[in-house]
């Protein structure tokens, strides 16, 4: 960063970082519920850009690229965390419940179940769901980001909602 000859490249990289970091951070925090994980996701995505050439889909639509990267990275973090939970899940849950049995444990459990289920969806379905309901994007806006028709997005949204409901019911042991 200190090399003056590259100050314009640094400037440009910084502009892109500053513009898209909030979207990535909000997405990652919304999914993981953890500031540390959100930082990891943000750092990982931009480190990836440093280490390789600019991907073509980033060139086409930066916002769509960064959103997709944020969702995928965050869900990967959740999957890794779920693997760790197989070892110490019970103890962690008991500890959480002891802190505030009526709010903290319930909300964290719901959040975890929701995103564990979303992590089982197809990546593009998860991305569209989060764009639509976490960020409040319209179907038209999402269609523009993904370069497809609004109808395609509507169908994917319908299918992903149905699939997500099914997954959640299965997790709760409810009958369909």
């Amino acid at each position, binding site marked *: *960063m*200190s090399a*003056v*000859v*590259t*100050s*314009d*490249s*640094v*400037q*440009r*990289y910084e*502009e892109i*970082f*500053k513009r898209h*970091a*909030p979207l990535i*951070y*909000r997405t990652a*925090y*919304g999914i993981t*519920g953890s*500031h540390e994980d*959100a*930082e990891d996701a*943000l*750092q990982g995505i*931009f*480190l990836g850009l*440093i280490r390789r*050439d*600019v991907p*073509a889909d*980033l*060139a*086409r639509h*930066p916002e769509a690229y960064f959103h997709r990267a944020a969702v995928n990275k965050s869900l990967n973090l959740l999957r890794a965390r779920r693997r760790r939970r197989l070892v110490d899940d019970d103890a962690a849950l008991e500890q*959480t419940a002891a*802190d505030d049995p009526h*709010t*903290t444990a*319930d*909300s*964290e459990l*719901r*959040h975890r179940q*929701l995103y564990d*289920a*979303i992590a089982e969806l197809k990546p593009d379905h998860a991305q569209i*769901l*989060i764009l639509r*309901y*976490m960020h*409040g994007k319209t179907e038209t806006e999402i269609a523009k980001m993904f370069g497809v028709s609004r109808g395609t997005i509507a169908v994917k949204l319908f299918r992903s*909602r149905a699939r997500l*409901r099914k997954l*959640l019911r299965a*997790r*709760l042991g*409810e009958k369909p």
Partner: protein
Amino acid sequence: MNHDAKPGAQNPEQLIAQSPVPSQAEMEFRIDRVWERLGSGIPLQSSTDLKGDPASETDWHSNPIKRPMLRPVVILACAVVTIAAAWFGIARRFVTNRNVYAIVENEDGPQYRVAAGQIVATDVWTRLAVTLPDGSRVEMRPQSQLSVSTASDGLRVRLDKGGIIVTAARQRSGHLYVDTKDVTVSVVGTVFLVGVEDAGSRVGVLEGKVQVKQGESTRMLVPPGQMVTNPMMELPALREQVAWSRYAKEHLALLQQDAAPIAAKQTEKPVQITQTQAPPKPPAPAAARPQFEVASVKRNNSGGQGMRFDNRGGRYSAANASLKFLIQQAYKVQPFQIIGAPAWIDSERYDIEAKAEGAEWNQMAPMLQSLIEERFKGAMHGETRDLPVYFLTVAKTGSKLKAGPCLTREPNTPAPPNQPQSAFCGYVGIGSGSVILTGQRIENLADFLSGILNRKVLDRTGLPGAFDVDLKWTPDISTPSVKQEAAAPSASDGPSIFTAIEEQLGLKLESGKAPIDVLVIDHIDHASDN
């Protein structure tokens, strides 16, 4: 995460919509931290890879690293536009522009050349000089952006942001123009500065004269005159506006020449720059500054993290101290106020033993400055820069600060028995994730928070008087200022400092930008052992 029902009982879309949202201030704080961590790994690219406007979304399209395939429709559209441009004579000028090259230089000399229309930008650490084809020199202050192109009768510099000082070469037949978003400055040979801010533009003249055109009106400016396009903008003294330049001495000399004969006719409007804090003391010449009677500086290669220092009894002793820590002490600045320093000043450790018989700590700080300048070949200067800050404001819930009674006692007298230290006015108790202040003004709380957040916190509460503060939060072990506390156990689900301030004190941290006095390190070197 305020959910009111079980997952199955709600639509999944409702659940997603209720996903946690980070507070703006905390998010910005963490994004800044990620940016700092990324800083050292940014790729070094040739400047020729970086054409185009960095602020543009379509910027990636022009990046030769990987150019997306152009669609036939786009190609056809470009062809139509090019033919139309040629028809109106625009294409001819564009072809001419391609032959304009400016040389970009830093302190080490010429670095690369830029073609017409290509953006030249500086980051927060960098000053550049651009030499134009006519021999004019354009100095760019940090965080500026410009491009150069031909005009019908000369050259044109487009300043998009930041500030420049132009030393215009004598024009033979044409003009040099500087455009901003709201003014055009034209010259035939002079030294002047132009700045662009959100509110408008500013122009000042050091030598010669310039013509400034704003909309339909035109006016001439002669030294040491200056103007702003928006009356709400501050008008700092010209000498302050050229302080960042490598050629500041030359510019100041021009101002002094101008001052005597013209002072009676034209006065430079004396507007005070908003001072947000005590500025770092400008380094006085080392010879005039007091020095330690004797001092020893030794590298400490123990690898330990803890630092110790003692300044009692006419001695200054620091063990395993980083150079950054020494600079902080000597110049009374916080880490975020030190700009342009190499990374090793934070990692390389030293043991310092120095003696100054009968000197108090306030007298030792200038001695420490002398030591840094001599042993570390330190050269630095003070500046004011727009930096990210937090504004401490009253939250919507209202302030929860209370002004309780506190005890006063004479200095150097023992505390009465059975009285806790925290009962005395002025008490400061700092623990891992906690702070207790007794009878302290809100500005002191802001200063304390600056240290924790590594960013200046400015009091905007308007709360007068002294207060008691008892604040507890979960320290973030990756925050630089609390790394040393990492070993301390803490609940991982406690409130962050942002949440704690809002919930426990009824105050709020809002991010923004403000002029902050900084200490710019021009040069620093490793110290050799005695």
